[in-house]
């Protein structure tokens, strides 16, 4: 297992290099001089030359890349053009709200999708199955920002139950925090729930046909034990795989949801930075998000090799 973990970590190195290179060179495509963008058009020529030297912008592109990478690895993500604050604390500050939103969406989607998928599979071709399948199809086809808007229309404007935007720290006021969290978590969790529902249903249908399930039933085990214990236990590998992929995708989904609900996470920070043309923040946010995405995929790999040792051998 240790060998497997080390191999997977080593295989990440070129990917992380690639991510850093794409992020670095993508931002270099921006027209204009980043130093003038930072210091302003009226800046003193000496100050421009000094900053250019500090940022290695007077060096060849490849040297610039490695100098930038060195700074990133030492935790220096640069300074925001807007206000001059350091980028890393900005990113870390936004990570908390994003983590809260993502984990809540994931939890919400699991609470809905797993029971719904199991019920649909055990009652195949019943109204329950059709309802779950239709809900999953609708969930997959509904753009999350539209769902967010519909939820705001229904639960903030027509029935003013939940606030339509904003964020309250859970430490400051836990109840207000939860009220602000409900609609964004529902929005983000819906698409996730739809895909998980489909996968749970399909996998359960396959597992329920297996011989050992027939044996378990023949032994007289209660249906509940067979379905929720034996069958779901074996259906968890593809479900966990999908969840891992989707949790990574949540990092993309938060961009839209956080913007719709003004949730101060890393997605909103990225979009705000894009409009402010604050490229150090855009660069840092893209790099951090992509790195987290890769690491989450790695953790998923490790989890399902723990769940199914055959995968380690293959």
């Amino acid at each position, binding site marked *: 297992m240790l060998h497997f973990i080390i191999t997977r970590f080593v295989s990440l190195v*070129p*990917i992380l290099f*690639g*991510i850093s*290179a*794409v*992020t670095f060179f*993508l*931002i270099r*495509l*921006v027209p204009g001089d980043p130093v003038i963008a930072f210091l302003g058009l009226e800046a003193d020529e000496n100050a421009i030359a000094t900053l250019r030297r500090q940022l290695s912008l007077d060096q060849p592109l490849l040297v610039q890349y490695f100098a930038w990478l060195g700074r990133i690895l030492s935790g220096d993500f640069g300074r925001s053009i807007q206000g001059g604050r350091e980028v890393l604390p900005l990113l870390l500050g936004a990570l908390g709200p994003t983590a809260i939103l993502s984990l809540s969406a994931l939890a919400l989607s699991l609470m809905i999708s797993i029971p719904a998928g199991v019920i649909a599979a055990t009652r195949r071709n019943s109204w329950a199955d059709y309802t779950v399948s239709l809900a999953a*199809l*609708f969930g*997959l*086809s*509904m*753009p999350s*920002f*539209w769902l967010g*808007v*519909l939820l*705001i*229309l229904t639960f903030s*404007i027509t029935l003013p139950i939940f606030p339509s935007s904003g964020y309250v720290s859970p430490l400051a006021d836990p109840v207000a925090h939860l009220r602000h969290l409900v609609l964004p978590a529902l929005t983000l969790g819906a698409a996730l729930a739809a895909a998980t529902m489909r996968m749970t249903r399909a996998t359960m249908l396959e597992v329920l046909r297996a011989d050992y399930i027939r044996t378990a039933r023949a032994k007289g085990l209660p249906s509940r034990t067979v379905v929720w214990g034996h069958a779901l236990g074996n259906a968890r590998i593809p479900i966990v795989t999908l969840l891992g992929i989707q949790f*990574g*995708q949540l*990092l*993309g*989904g938060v*961009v*839209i949801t956080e*913007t*719709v609900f003004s949730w101060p996470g890393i997605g909103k920070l*990225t*979009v705000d930075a*894009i*409009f402010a043309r604050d490229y150090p923040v*855009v660069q840092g946010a*893209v790099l951090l*998000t*992509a790195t987290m*995405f*890769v690491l989450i995929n790695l953790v998923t790999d490790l989890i399902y090799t723990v769940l199914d040792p055959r995968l380690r051998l293959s």
Partner: protein
Amino acid sequence: MKADPGVGALPIGPPRGVAGLFRALAADPRSAAGLALVCSAIIAAAFAPVIAPSDPDTPDFINVLAPPSLIHLFGTDELGRDVLSRIIYGARASLFVGCLSVAAAAVIGTLLGLAAGTMGRLTDALIMRAMDVIFAFPSILLALAITAVLGPSLTNAVLAIVVVNVPVFARLVRAQTMVVSRLEFVEAKRALGFGEGHIVFRTILPNILPPVIVQGSLLFASAIITESYLSFLGLGVQPPTPTWGNMLRNAIGFLELAPWLAWFSGSAIFLTVLGSNLLGDGLRDRFDPRD
């Protein structure tokens, strides 16, 4: 391109001919519903000047934010423009971006996948590691970053969607190529002395097209959503050109006064994506009944 006789050797295979495929899809209620939704959007886009009740950009300051009525079936927006007409014209940008980006990604991804699958280990490693890097970014984030850097426009939205979708096709085609290139009829072609170009483009390619088409139909839905995300965030097609995404972005400012703006523009995206998903599922069932 005519498929090689070796097609019959594969376990997968499309229904015979385009007409046969349409008949098969029409016979399945879900696929027929998907086909009807997608065709409605295509007809709206193609015949917008004929179908739309009025010009999508002409303001009518007397009828600002008018609710749905017999004169304006979907109401009007904050400039008094007819929402139905804007939705019909909006289909053009959304479908154009969806079709063009998926087609371009399919062509580039297929060529890269074929090269990776047939041109040896070094080429394979170089291409697939590059694809892995693109895959390492959440797709919407990469699309956002590309449009943010290149500037918001229709062309850059297409480019962003192409970049995020190329690896999907490249991986799929590489995997299929590896399987097909080891089959006996391909080996037979090699033994008969056919050139590598002939084998790749005349023998392997026609045999790997069905899953590429299915993937394309499913990615078409995701491309429409990505375009609407970009437009919604203000990074896609710019106003006054109507797109469903920028109409929904605009609707946010008038949720209390004119909720129909959000209802109708969002419904247009939802129904088209729903149709594409249904059609994609139907195509997958037809091309690969094992799935």
